[in-house]
């Protein structure tokens, strides 16, 4: 066994993991689920919510799996009566200050809090007490923030500061009334927000949601199609969320090799052009100064005739094709093949080499 590897036991099963990994990571690699709320692989380990608490043999108190590194011969227990009791209490406390709004919430079906409440069978009724009653904040085109649904996991703040480094949001208020917001609670657009939506993508609850996708369908009604962004050459992956033949929302693909769920404003919120009323919907043929709608057959016949005619009249060097850096590889290959096999020349070029 190399220096970089250590052996530990999780729930009695021996596994081999990388030195320096956290217990959480090692457990996930071994297929053991440990619940978390404040953890996101894109962020530094935090240890805030304590839901991932586990027992380690020889240590008298519970340890957070997300920040504790593995050590040789460590023996970890991820489920026990004590652990379950503690997790129940954490979830109950969160629910005691959470609006009972799952039936209308955009997040229902993919909400980490809802899943935990279900898994641990708690509803928050055992801890009555004060609830927040804060105004919903949505004075911007993309993001709706309902602080009442916030479980103060800090993920939005951390992703905005650690990953995006925009510094748009931070903790505001004191004590029980501490929650994430912009400085002086100004609209995001006045606080350097890049509208990358990373905060939305990391929020485990319905506190942060995409404004444009609101009311367009919840997770079980949507088909998710994994694809690659068409805007810039970074090659981010994401899911197009489709309902009734329409793209209604873009959501993160956390396993994407390039972007790990992160996106920019164009990739995340620049999709409405797809169903824009301005799209060209049929072939158009010029007559004089105006264009007339045509069928595909009419247009393609005309194109074939015209190019054949030009080649006959002026020779095959008089025609060419521009390819597009926005089209697919397959289409670029075909247009190169087309020029060489049909025009019989090499007049084919990338239009703008940028």
């Amino acid at each position, binding site marked *: 066994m190399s220096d970089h590897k250590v052996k530990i036991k999780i729930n009695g099963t021996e596994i081999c993991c990388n030195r320096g990994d956290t217990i959480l990571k090692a457990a996930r690699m071994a297929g053991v689920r440990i619940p978390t709320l404040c953890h996101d692989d894109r962020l530094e380990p935090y240890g805030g919510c304590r839901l991932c608490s586990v027992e380690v043999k020889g240590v008298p108190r519970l340890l957070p799996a997300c920040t504790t590194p593995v050590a040789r011969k460590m023996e970890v227990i991820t489920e026990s009566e004590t652990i379950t009791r503690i997790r129940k209490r954490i979830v109950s406390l969160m629910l005691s200050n959470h609006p009972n709004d799952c039936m209308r919430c955009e997040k229902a079906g993919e909400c980490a809090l809802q899943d935990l409440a279900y898994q641990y069978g708690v509803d928050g009724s055992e801890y009555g007490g004060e609830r927040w009653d804060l105004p919903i904040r949505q004075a911007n*085109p993309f993001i709706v923030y309902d602080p009442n649904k916030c479980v103060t996991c800090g993920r939005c703040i951390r992703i905005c500061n650690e990953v995006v480094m925009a510094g748009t949001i931070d903790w505001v208020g004191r004590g029980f009334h501490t929650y994430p917001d912009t400085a002086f609670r100004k609209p995001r*657009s006045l606080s350097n927000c*890049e509208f990358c939506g990373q905060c939305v993508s990391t929020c485990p609850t319905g506190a942060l949601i995409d404004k444009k996708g609101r009311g367009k369908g919840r997770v079980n009604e949507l088909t998710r*199609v*994994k*694809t*690659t962004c*068409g*805007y*810039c*050459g*970074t*090659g*981010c992956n994401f899911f*197009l969320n489709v309902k009734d*033949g*329409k*793209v209604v929302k873009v959501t993160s693909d956390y396993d994407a*090799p*390039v972007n790990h769920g992160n996106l920019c404003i*164009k990739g995340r919120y*620049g999709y409405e*052009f797809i*169903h824009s009323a301005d799209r*060209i919907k*049929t*072939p158009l043929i*010029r007559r004089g100064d105006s264009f007339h709608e045509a069928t*595909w057959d009419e247009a*393609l016949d005309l*194109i*074939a005739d015209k*190019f054949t005619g030009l080649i006959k009249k002026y020779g095959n060097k008089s*025609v*060419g*094709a*521009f*390819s*597009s*850096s*926005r089209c*697919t*590889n*397959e*289409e*670029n*290959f*075909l247009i190169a*093949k*087309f*020029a*060489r096999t049909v025009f019989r*020349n*090499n*007049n*084919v*070029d*990338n239009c*703008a080499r*940028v």
Partner: protein
Amino acid sequence: MAGLATSLGAGAATNSLAQMPDIDMLFLFGSNPTEAHPIVSFYLKKALRNGAKLVVGDPRKTWMARRADVWLNLRPGSNIALLNGMVNVILQEGWENREFIEKRTEGFEELKKKVKEYDLETVEKLTGVSKGNIIEAARLYSHADKAMIVYGLGVTEHQTGTENAMAIANLALVCGHLGRPSTGIMALRGQNNVQGASDLGPLPSSFPGYQAMSNTGAREKFEKAWGVTLSTEIGLKSVEMLEKACEGKFKGIFILGEDPAQTDPNINEVRKALDSLEFLVVQDIFHTETTKHAHVILPGASFAEKDGTFTNGERRVQRVRKAVEPIAGKAEWQVICEIATRMGYPMSYRHPSEIMDEIASLTPIYGGISYARLEKESLQWPCPTKDHPGTTTLYTDLFSRPGGLAKFMALDHKGSGETPDSEYPYVLITGRVREHYNNGSMTRRSPGIMELVPEELLEINAEDAMKLKIKNGDKVSVSSRRGKIKVKVKVTDRSQPGNVFLTFHFPEALSNLLTSEHKDPITGTPEYKSCAVKIEK
């Protein structure tokens, strides 16, 4: 990318994005990733958080420039002088990597002789960068263990764009900063599939996969696969086709999804060329400046409406998947097949995966790629065989040039095609903002984005604004020798005195009416990054 191809062998980034957080020293040159490549900027920001040193070469005071250990605020168009100057410092101080130079490169003596002409005095004069900053940048770069140069369109969109890239390669080669993880040269480019589009052969002088047309073996392979005799005559570049059209010697063009009448520089000439054609077909998803000149307009399919692949800036081939049916019924690949068939060369594929199979069989760098593999893994070319894992770091042993050696190129400073004078005293730099994309035809149709950035703004320094007696929000006219536009002003210290900035996202303010006709003679890439303008109230 012709620059890197000449010096190193392949016109592509040498490393993976995922290696970026581990770099010790980042030299960012002519690139503003926080605006143009936000996700790449996240990797770079992580490197900075991990303690990487930062040198930024950019005439504009970008987000990164503000945080740099050294900001090289060079004059637009003086890239080569600056890089030669840095190499000269490195050689004078003995900071070069002699073993690397000896074992893995050629042409060093010529380079050495050339850069001697670029002493600090001269370079300071040409670039406007202080001697101390040049020395410090050279020191930081040459002394780092894992040093990476990341460059952008600020390097390539000049008339010396190709040579600028070669000058960057010189710097990396002198220090031996290539061929190792987190150490190399990454080029950040504009459009989403510019890498794939270059890889797959719509180039007038090479077959797919950069196989030279002069290579008889390659030609025979394609002739056999395609069943035709192929022309051996090098074709025309897009700019040449347009020039010939103006002269009445070129008659018909098929334009697939591009908008040269808005995004090319000096668009008056482009429009004239398009109008001179006897037959112009344009396929696009929206009406653009270019479709106005067409005889037939075909509806295109957006990326959400077809299957295919894109290749990103780190050579990673990834799937594009059809989420909805093509709005107009057909995708571009189908249309090309139908026209070819009608013109007597039958083409038919049941699915784009079959096109990829043909690509793989004819293009060694894509040889191992198939849709089945892409379902399970993500591959960076070169990936020559079905069991090859792809390549994250290029040139670990050999450069892909004849003999396996990289080549130093001795280069001269030439400056911009057009420099400011008393009549047109300002340098106009054009570029992107984060919220929009190219001609804007997609982002302008996303309501929220238009709400944030509804119109073009001329970025100008406070000092210049005061001189011109203009303030934020004033409408001014910007003119060059070629045209004039009206636009609102934004006063910002991102622009340095003497330089102003515009994007090219808005058809209401066509900045490319102003940009110059100068272009890189090797690639034909236009000089978007520098032209002379005047500003009037």
